[in-house]
């Protein structure tokens, strides 16, 4: 099966390893992965900020970039939500760009749900952890997968010592432009999130959203906490022996 990788701007820039892990895992399960080099951003920051004209232009551009492919996979549930749920309403019925944007909405998959629903992969059967883990449920995954889904994938993994946080779906405080518009407030929310994670006693946090990871790891590093963050794609690639375990310098 041919899939086009929609890497998202944050993963491309900050977490190339997550992209590599996705490619290796998808290939492992028999996909032929393509990467359209023309892709940039789905427009989510503009959309959430209320700049809908700008967002519409970017998402319609992405629809063109991905038009040759019948299946698009992305590591981010929030970008998938942008494409699948917020994109089409930006274009009124009859708008020239609407069909392409709707097509993109229909064929876009978030990585973990693609594995589960499209490829029929039982992630828990392949995952293995050799240290206690905890997880963050990203708010913007609600339309894609539930807290229970994520918790289930992890809890069923081999050798898993899963420490469920008291409130796994507590917001990390990122919120796009909000994080730099109201940084002190965003940081106060982050403090709550980090103390929840710390209270679990696990150092490894499974976090599937690059934006949340940027926020949480940035706050953890500033505070000198031991927390480390990893995307499920990386965990899978490592468990399947497709990638060397990451070395954690410093």
């Amino acid at each position, binding site marked *: 099966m041919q899939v086009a990788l929609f890497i998202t701007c944050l*993963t491309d820039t900050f977490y*190339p390893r997550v992209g590599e892990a996705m490619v290796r895992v998808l290939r492992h399960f028999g996909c032929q992965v393509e990467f359209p080099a023309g892709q940039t951003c789905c427009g989510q920051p503009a959309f*959430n900020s*209320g700049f809908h004209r700008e967002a519409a232009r970017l998402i319609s551009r992405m629809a063109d970039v991905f038009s040759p492919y019948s299946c698009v996979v992305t590591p981010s549930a929030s970008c998938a939500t942008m494409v699948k749920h917020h994109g089409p309403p930006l274009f009124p019925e009859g708008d020239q760009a609407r069909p392409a944007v709707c097509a993109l909405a229909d064929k876009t998959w978030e990585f973990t749900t693609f594995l589960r629903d499209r490829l029929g992969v039982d992630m828990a059967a392949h995952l293995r952890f050799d240290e206690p883990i905890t997880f963050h449920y990203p708010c913007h995954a609600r339309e894609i997968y539930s807290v229970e889904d994520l918790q289930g994938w992890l809890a069923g993994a081999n050798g898993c010592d899963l420490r469920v946080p008291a409130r796994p779906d507590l*917001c990390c405080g990122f919120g796009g432009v909000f994080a730099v518009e109201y940084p002190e407030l965003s940081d106060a929310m*982050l403090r*709550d999130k980090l103390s929840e994670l710390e209270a679990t006693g696990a150092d490894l946090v499974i976090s599937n959203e690059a934006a949340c990871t940027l926020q949480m790891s*940035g706050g953890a590093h*500033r505070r000198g906490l031991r927390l480390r963050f990893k995307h499920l794609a990386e965990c899978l690639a490592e468990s399947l022996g497709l990638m060397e375990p990451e070395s954690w310098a410093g």
Partner: protein
Amino acid sequence: MGWLSGKLRLRLAEATRNTPVVEAVHRVTWRKVDARRVSMDKLRHAENLRTRAERIRRHVLERLPDYLEQFVTQATAGGACVHFAPDATAADRIICEIARSRGLRLAVKSKSMTTEEVRLNDALAAADVRVVETDLGEFIVQIDHDRPSHIISPIIHKDRRQIAGAMARELGCAYTEDPEELTSIARRHLRDIFRRCDLGITGVNFAVAETGTLCLLTNEGNGRMTVTRPRVHVALLGIEKIIPRLTDLPVFLKLLARSSTGQAMGAYTTLITGPKRSADRDGPEELHIVLLDNGRSDILAGPVPEVLHCVRCGACLNACPVYRNIGGHAYNSVYPGPIGSLLTPLLWGPSHEELPRVSSLCGACRLACPVKIDIPELLVRLRSLATDRQPRIKRWLLRGWAWGMNRAWRYRLGQRLMRRTLSDDGSGWATRGLGPLRDWTGQRDLPRPGARSFRQLWQEDLGDER
């Protein structure tokens, strides 16, 4: 000051540093979130109930003029006198005039955010009517010359010492921090007021069109005293609070208390249809219902009419991580929290236009809302209508960013520039960003992008591996 934010940022930053308030708000909101969840989990078909509540609210607001007409007809037939107030000033004038013409001098009030919205207490004080709040929380707010900071728990921001201090100072009682003692002091004080009052003022939780009935929910019994003791009862009713039939009421009664406090039911549910009848032993001689518009018709005709579905349960405030970290006063509005961030700019205009932006759009409010208002979506809708009035620098930055993202080569150039301008101390983390990134690195470190972006990795190695 930041690149992307204005004065509000300072106010909110200050609010996050007010540790005693923030801690108190954390404690109470988490307790209520948990209580709500437990009580909703016990409810059979909770989701269906929320859906039904939403449908009823939507249905009413689509036919509001008809239902209002029916309500007025029925309430009048039941003996109530119905007034219509297009705005806050009119509501205040009508109520002051009722007091003046009948020589009413001492008013008791049960908790009502709508009366806060029209600043009724100030208007009555100016008209020489003494108003006493009878909800314990509101009573403490009043004697401490404070403002409520939560629509259900008005003194969520106060600790026991502040309450004890205010009671001792204003009521002349012995200083005590014991909640039960404080409550009984307030109760004795209020009993005396209830004996002497001649005007009772309430809000309304639901008004039933079919019967002209007012429904009032309280936990302390003060509401029932307020509508039975004085000789005149004035109810201030926002026009959106109508529901069609008496049989719709249970849907909301099941949801409202659970959403507010986690109780299966409020302690007192009072249904009022008309003033005292000749056979009744108590009740007011006159019942006045003041229907308040105050911008609601405009909201209904505007871009976010769903805001009016709100039943003022306060669940979205309790669920909100923003509210939890700044408290209610930071919103500078009678209506704080997620629903307040929508209502405030709609009711009080452009000076509050920034409030919808104070949200990470996490959606905890949407999940908590008993009538399923999609608050994050409405916040974004309001943001989209105010972009032209955003500070110029922010518009330029966002449009410039979007322009950059519109071509892959510009995007790649941006990536390289970002890497160049971010310096790290060898740890891989940047601690001081330039320009707008400074507003990130003030609080958080930023991982310095690696030598190769994913697309470079793909181009150079990964793409060819197959």
